[in-house]
């Protein structure tokens, strides 16, 4: 009989299924669950983009595109980035259209990380960074972010984590799961530490359009001396509610992008053609839809933050993405216990903070990518839950 254990390398077998996945399995067993657990918009893709996809299919545009993506799409992305983060990228040599931001993250790490390298991962954060680093033979080095620091990356914490082996820093802001953002001043301090080092930044800006409170997103790539050491990762999933279209992109200095493009070329060929055409429309004609969605998110954000604070689960004021990250330590439960009890007794699903790194323990992630009606129902069930627990 074939021995799969010998076939599958230990480091692959050792990769843990994400804590989100585990929780999903629990949630699925319970009948009639209402969820505040998704990491994707509740809105549908703007109609103009959907219509463009239909038109493209009718015209039979179903072939591969250029490896790096349609030239017109790259030109539009370049214009967009210029306008939004004020950084100039050459659409022909400094950009790749990828299968979601996910692929861009994977490419960046595979192109740069080798055995012996350390990659700094501020936590709590999105679940994919560490496994990819590990597969590349690198070592993920978590940097703990705390509520006292508004869940941002502090320059001194960064400095303390850097060793001669440090290859790259993941900069995941606006942050999933905390909703924290790094404002210009916060980024300046981080940039100051990195300038003059040989450390690359992989800046995951997938939620960059979703910042609240007036100030727009700032990319670290726009700061002095940082463009040459930053790979900007972004995409269409969140901004344009296009998760299922699987389209994202990265932009960065040509010597790195060139290597990433080779990997992309061999493992993907080119990103989905229909999605690329729809993305051109998203960039050129869906601004109003995006503004509308962001305004909605902002309203829900305030509703949810107030809801948790009123229940006595203190909630740091998130300024980005579509998550809030209330602290549940006062209940005396771990985040996994809290979430399991909540789902069994009140059928509400929220994600344990511990799924996003050890420093997420004591918190739960609540998504507000849901209608107001849905949110108020779920909040009142959580309130009942706390009352019944004698909180």
């Amino acid at each position, binding site marked *: 009989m074939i021995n799969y254990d010998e076939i599958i390398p230990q480091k692959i077998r050792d990769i843990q299924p994400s804590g989100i996945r585990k929780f999903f399995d629990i949630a699925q067993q319970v009948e009639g669950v209402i969820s505040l657990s998704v*990491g994707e918009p509740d809105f549908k893709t703007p109609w103009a983009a959907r219509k463009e996809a239909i038109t493209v299919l009718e015209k039979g545009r179903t072939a591969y595109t250029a490896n790096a993506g349609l030239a017109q799409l790259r030109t539009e992305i370049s214009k967009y980035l210029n306008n939004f983060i004020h950084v100039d990228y050459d659409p022909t040599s400094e950009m790749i259209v990828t299968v979601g931001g996910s692929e861009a993250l994977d490419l960046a790490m595979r192109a740069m990380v080798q055995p012996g390298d350390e990659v700094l991962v501020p936590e709590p954060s999105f679940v994919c960074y560490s496994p990819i680093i590990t597969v590349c033979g690198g070592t993920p080095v978590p940097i703990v972010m705390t509520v006292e620091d508004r869940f941002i990356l502090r320059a001194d914490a960064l400095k303390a984590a850097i060793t001669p082996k440090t290859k790259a820093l993941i900069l995941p802001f606006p942050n999933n799961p905390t909703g924290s953002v790094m404002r210009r001043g916060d980024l300046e301090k981080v940039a100051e530490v990195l300038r003059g080092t040989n450390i690359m930044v992989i800046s995951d800006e997938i939620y960059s359009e979703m910042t609240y409170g007036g100030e727009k997103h700032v990319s670290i790539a726009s700061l002095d001396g940082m463009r040459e050491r930053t790979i900007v990762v972004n995409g269409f999933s969140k901004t344009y509610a296009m998760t299922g279209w699987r389209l994202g992109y990265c932009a960065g200095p040509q010597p790195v992008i060139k290597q990433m493009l080779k990997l992309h070329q061999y493992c993907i060929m080119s990103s989905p053609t229909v999605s690329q055409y729809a993305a051109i429309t998203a960039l050129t004609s869906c601004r109003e839809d995006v503004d509308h969605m962001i305004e909605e998110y902002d309203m829900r954000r*305030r509703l949810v933050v107030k809801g948790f604070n009123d229940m006595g689960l203190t909630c740091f004021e998130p300024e980005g993405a579509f998550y809030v990250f209330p602290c549940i330590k006062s209940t005396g439960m771990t985040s996994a216990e809290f979430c399991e009890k909540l789902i069994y007794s009140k059928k509400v699903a929220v994600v344990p903070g511990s799924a996003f790194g050890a420093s997420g323990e004591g918190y739960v992630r609540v998504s507000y990518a849901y209608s107001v009606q849905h949110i108020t129902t779920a909040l009142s069930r959580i309130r009942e839950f706390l009352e019944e627990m004698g909180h």
Partner: protein
Amino acid sequence: MNKKLLALLKQNARLTNAELSAMLGVSEQEVAAGIKQLEDEGIIIGYSAIVNEEKADDNAVTAIIELKVTPFKDRGFDDLAHTIMQYEEVDSVFLLSGANDLSITITGTSLRKVALFVSERLAVLDGVLSTTTHFVLRRYKEKNHVFNEEHSDERSLVSP
């Protein structure tokens, strides 16, 4: 602010002032004043539940009745509309452009009652030339609320 307030109330009039104040980022007093102003100005004229009539009462029927009428000299369609409005069976009365003039919705406890209402109360009114009655067979959506949709959210329960 009142425009946003109105949009929220149109979607869900049962949001509390506290919830509305959080969502709009203004004080509860400002919300209360905003609502009062909308009411005083006659912009908000009432609040009512959106009811799934079939569920509430097995026999309930709703009909949309289109009327062709002759306008009265000097008084247009208003007189007739006002007469029809007085019947309590009548839920709504609209003046329309196009082929028909007035559109009325009626909810009754049986098909027969609605049909009798049309023939005995509406058709006989002075100025009514003809009536066309459409019974509602199924409700899908009303005032932006969807009926009988078990799970319209296709997203996974939990995702990263």
